[in-house]
């Protein structure tokens, strides 16, 4: 055989052998993880930062609850407040003064004891205007907190946070706020280690090196071990955490998983115990063949479209109602989103801590057409060009296209679509340069207030140009001052009725959280805020690795 024939063949054989040799070997993460009690968690986007007073996203939130702990925690199933760093608390008669008793065995990861002063200092830092904490509003129920955060007030001792003694913290609120305890579980209210921060820079300085591996000091069930950018972030069980006997996991690997298709493949290949989302097209398959891995539960959020009421033809409530009535939400959640989302007829998700608003009308194309004609556009004639704005995302696109078609079919109106990147889309929406814009709102805590306080006139999150005096009175005056839960909810109900009558927004569906979870993962019951309690989770390694 000629040399020129042998050599290429040798090369090919070598390639094939090396490929085969590289295949199939090695155990996957789930097998090893189950054995060593290490959880592999698909965490969505790469986390921005580890400073709880700067971050803003859900991936970061997961890291924060692993590395830090606030005064109060939430029960993994009911989301009721349970003791965290504070072992007990008392609330005054009028509901405005909370006194927290910090447990004496709470420690930082470097052994320092946790004190009430830690919390006072941390909250002061969190509210510093220079720091630019986008969630500073979590603290606003506290007396004078808002004034301090805008720089109006520079003396923090005037803010309603007092250290009574080493382990006792007294907090004074503006109004009785039933959901205040829930706010304390938000990362912007977490404590940070003063000495570490001051070692690396000013308290109000963003992005100093105090959060690096090796410097980070936290008080949570886990400590920061390793962070390879865009690859993996590893935390290990903390030896100093006060409740370390409850913690069964030895460590968690947080994997950044932006590509949802790849994430699902990783799950199938046994590389992840838990995925951040489930690609919609795979849901049916899992429901039929592997239902134990599919975890779907109601989520405290509403998917809706904002309508810019400043635009002439959209300022007529009849037009808005016509648009809302000609969407078949049942069809959308069944055929487009497919994960078991719930068609939304109220803005606040039903049964939010026992509150359910009165339902708005469902799919009614005849009435829609009648309303449109009444408003001056019979049969869709003369209806000005209207555009749906959405941020670039597969799911939003599909919905927008489907809704566009529904409006065309039922009302005979021409709608165009425009998608923009997240940042541009936010800018466009905020500056009011849109007609209809896709939106979603996730509750910050479980209480109707977090949904209804959006619609403050010209409020930063309103963006529709809609406002209503009676609505504002009900939400911002009557409800906070209500004497009973019932009265409070009644005020909310009336307010929401106004909102739904005027329809500055078009409701689409109530979110569900959907994840793929390996059967070996226990202690993850699923709750309304999709909040994982890592210290209660454990891996039982009876199941086989990987799913075929």
């Amino acid at each position: 055989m000629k040399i020129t024939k042998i050599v290429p063949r040798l090369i090919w054989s070598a390639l094939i052998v090396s490929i085969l040799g590289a295949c199939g070997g090695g155990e996957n993460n789930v097998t090893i993880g189950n054995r060593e009690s290490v959880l592999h968690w698909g965490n969505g986007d790469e986390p921005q930062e580890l400073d709880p007073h700067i971050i803003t996203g859900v991936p970061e939130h997961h890291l924060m609850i692993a590395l830090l702990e606030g005064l109060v925690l939430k029960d993994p199933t009911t989301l009721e407040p349970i003791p965290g760093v504070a072992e007990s608390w008392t609330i005054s008669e009028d509901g405005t003064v909370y006194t927290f008793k910090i447990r004496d065995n709470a420690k930082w990861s470097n052994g320092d004891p946790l004190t009430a002063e830690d919390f006072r200092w941390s909250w002061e830092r969190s509210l510093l205007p220079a720091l630019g904490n986008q969630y500073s509003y979590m603290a606003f129920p506290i007396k004078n907190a808002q004034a301090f955060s805008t720089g109006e007030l520079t003396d923090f001792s005037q803010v309603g946070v007092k250290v009574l003694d080493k382990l006792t913290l007294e907090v004074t609120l503006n109004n009785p706020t039933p959901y205040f305890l829930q706010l304390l579980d938000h990362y912007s209210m977490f404590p940070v280690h003063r000495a570490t921060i001051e070692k690396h820079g000013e308290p109000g300085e963003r992005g100093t090196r105090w959060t690096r591996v090796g410097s980070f000091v936290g008080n949570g069930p886990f400590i920061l071990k390793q962070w390879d950018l865009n690859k993996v972030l590893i935390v290990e069980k903390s030896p100093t955490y006060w409740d370390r006997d409850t913690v069964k996991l030895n460590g968690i690997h947080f994997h950044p998983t932006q590509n949802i298709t790849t994430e699902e493949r990783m799950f199938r290949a046994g590389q992840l115990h838990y995925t951040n989302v489930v690609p919609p097209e795979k849901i049916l398959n899992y429901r039929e063949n592997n239902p134990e891995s599919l975890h779907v539960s109601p989520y405290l959020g509403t998917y809706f479209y904002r309508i810019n009421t400043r635009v002439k033809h959209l300022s007529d409530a009849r037009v808005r109602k016509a648009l809302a009535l000609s969407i078949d939400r049942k069809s959308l959640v069944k055929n487009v989103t497919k994960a078991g989302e719930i068609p939304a007829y109220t803005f606040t998700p039903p049964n939010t801590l026992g509150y359910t608003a009165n339902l708005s009308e469902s799919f009614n194309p005849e009435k829609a057409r009648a309303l449109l004609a009444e408003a001056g556009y019979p049969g869709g004639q003369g209806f000005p060009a209207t555009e749906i704005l959405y941020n670039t995302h597969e799911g939003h696109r599909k919905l927008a296209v489907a809704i566009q078609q529904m409006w065309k079919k039922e009302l005979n109106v021409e709608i165009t679509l425009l998608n923009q990147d997240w940042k541009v889309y936010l800018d466009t929406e905020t500056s009011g340069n849109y007609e209809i814009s896709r939106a979603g709102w996730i509750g910050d805590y479980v209480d109707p207030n977090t949904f209804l306080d959006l619609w403050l006139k010209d409020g930063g999150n309103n963006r529709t140009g809609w406002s209503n005096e009676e609505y504002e009175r009900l939400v911002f005056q009557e409800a906070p001052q209500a004497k009973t839960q019932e009265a409070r909810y009644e005020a909310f109900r009336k307010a929401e009725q106004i909102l739904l009558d005027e329809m500055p927004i078009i409701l689409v569906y109530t979110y569900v959280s959907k994840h793929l979870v390996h059967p070996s993962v226990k202690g993850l019951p699923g709750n309304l805020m999709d909040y994982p309690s890592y210290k209660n989770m454990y891996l039982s390694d009876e199941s086989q690795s990987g799913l075929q």
Partner: protein
Amino acid sequence: MTSAKEFDDEQGVSLWQDAWVRLQHNRLALLGMGVLIFMIVIALITPWIVPYSYEEQDLMLGAAPPSMAHWLGTDVLGRDMLTRVMYGGRVSLMVGFIATGVALLIGVVYGAVAGYVGGRVDAAMMRLVDILYALPFMIFIILLMVLFGRNMLLLFLAIGAVEWLTMARIVRGQVLSLRQQEFVEAAISIGLSPWTIIRRHIIPNTLGPVIVYTTLTIPSVMLLEAFLSFLGLGIQPPQSSWGLLISYGVETMEEYPWLLIYPGLTLSIALFALNFLGDGLRDALDPKASKD
């Protein structure tokens, strides 16, 4: 001695005829040409022959495999794939041809001028090309599309602006070498105007490499558009291009493989055809063809 006109006419005719004969021997190239013509014709008459509208949805149906009603199946919103592939072809081919046309126009003019004038003007012009060559264009295109929103015009301009450089280089190289040849010197000495010389002598002789390069640029432009669409920066829904259809198909390739296969196949075939044709043309027009 033959007159200048007869001389160069003779040269021109025999070169083309020769090339055509050579091309005919290359069966792959002919196949490519045939496929390409077929696709162009279909793309042109698409609006009149499609069975469905490209945005008509059937949410109840969802993604269905190929059937008598839908020859290539439907996508996740129940839209007919055959229609979408045909419309996608229209868009992809259009982007391919137009953007290449833009590149061609700029590149040929620029290169011809540089090569013909020569000297310092040429050096300066080519220096600019070198500088632009060094820029990471993909980065700029991404940036442009992200920052300025996505519209077709910007897409054409952006792509065209990337591809003209090599065209300019090729044309300039050709023109430079041609200019030094005897028959051009002869033409100049006779007193023909530069424009006549360019028109009659230079351009016909540069046409060869230009045609070849154009035929080979079109597929890379189409790839570029597909690539941008994959990142979400190219063609926007509800329009579709092959690239966009492929990126959707990739997401669901395990459940609904037909959503990936058909657009993928059509794009690949189109690219194959163009490349084989381009190769064939190059072999045919290049006098130093492979013989032994």
